[in-house]
């Protein structure tokens, strides 16, 4: 097993275990998971922007002061030390989870995912990725053209909103027509799947 695979599986196991453990060993498991990922890919430790963490941090730091059972005081304000401890453990879990997600996305290429999918029995994954890239451009063009004629026919927000099912069905039928054309082309060209 390669080192990055071993780190991915061990960190994931630690993170899942942390969900069941009391706060102190749970915190240690989260730190170990993030530490392992960070040791191999230091960039993964820069998980999320400060803006991303502002709301969860404020929420978990404010929560002890809202607790119905305060047991300590901070600058004269009653708060629950137990709830603060829990909140820090939850934040640590969220941080370790984000680090692990970034670690995985930094560590595995599209080719490796394709090979892994093939080992699982999804043999046409590579072909589908290539096909998706081709189809993406033509579907984008088709959708913008459908939208152009649809909005030309229905001036005003209300009329456009009322006709949404028609737009939806038209987009779907055009996509199906594109799929049929591609299928025929692949068949005539003798593409083996």
């Amino acid at each position, binding site marked *: 097993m390669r080192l990055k695979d071993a780190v991915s599986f061990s960190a994931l196991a630690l993170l899942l275990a942390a*969900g069941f453990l009391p706060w102190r060993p749970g915190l240690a498991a989260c730190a170990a998971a993030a530490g392992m990922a960070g040791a191999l890919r230091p960039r993964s430790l820069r998980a999320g922007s400060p803006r991303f963490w502002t709301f969860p941090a404020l929420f978990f730091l404010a929560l002890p002061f*809202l607790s119905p059972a305060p047991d300590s005081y901070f600058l004269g304000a009653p708060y629950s030390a137990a709830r603060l401890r829990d909140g820090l453990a939850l934040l640590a879990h969220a941080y370790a989870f984000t680090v692990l997600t970034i670690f995985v996305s930094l560590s595995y290429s599209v080719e490796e995912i394709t090979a892994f999918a093939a080992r699982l029995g999804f043999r046409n994954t590579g072909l589908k*990725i290539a096909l998706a890239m081709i189809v993406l451009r033509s579907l984008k063009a088709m959708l913008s053209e459908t939208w152009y004629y649809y909005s030309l026919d229905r001036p005003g927000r209300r009329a456009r909103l009322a006709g949404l099912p028609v737009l939806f069905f038209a987009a779907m039928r055009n996509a199906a027509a594109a799929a049929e054309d591609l299928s025929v082309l692949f068949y005539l060209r003798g593409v083996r799947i």
Partner: protein
Amino acid sequence: MNDQASRIRFAVYTTVFGVLWGLAEMFLGTWLKALNMPLKGAVMAAIGAVLLSAGRVYVPRRWSTLSTGLVAAALKMVSFSAFKLGPVSGIMIEALVMEAVFSVFGNGSAAVFWATLLACFEGVPHFFVSNWLIYGGGIFGAYIDAAARIQKMLGFSGDMWLKVVAVWAGAHLLIGALAGAGAAAVAGRIRREA
């Protein structure tokens, strides 16, 4: 249709419908998120479920729905709103749920309706499971504490948070039922036109 033509049709249709859903997720999903629209997950699930149902009618073969979902999830993974594990896993679970319903009950109107409804309702258990995975087991105690405190501050009595959860779950069911009726109508129209 021979076996090779059928395999080509399977690969191409599932990719095209997956890309269509992926595009909807990339653009509409990102736009709804920017608007902070409530129940955006259920709305996006409804759109995806209608597309999956239509795809299943065009390619009525086992695994075609799951295959379509995998393409959409792969596209969402590389979308410009950065890597989002929640929506990606949501897409895959939704495809898996619909695949299971279609595989067991076929792709008639009733199966299309129930598969779509279930796919839209998936957001409710998904919220609990994903919160547990991200924050750990203590998160629900923290939520209930915060809700109880806010409820007390606003002067509401009883378990107000339970009512909020019930309304939220009910809204998912309503969106699912409306989308289910729409998906059944679309599937019926495709069958008639074929």
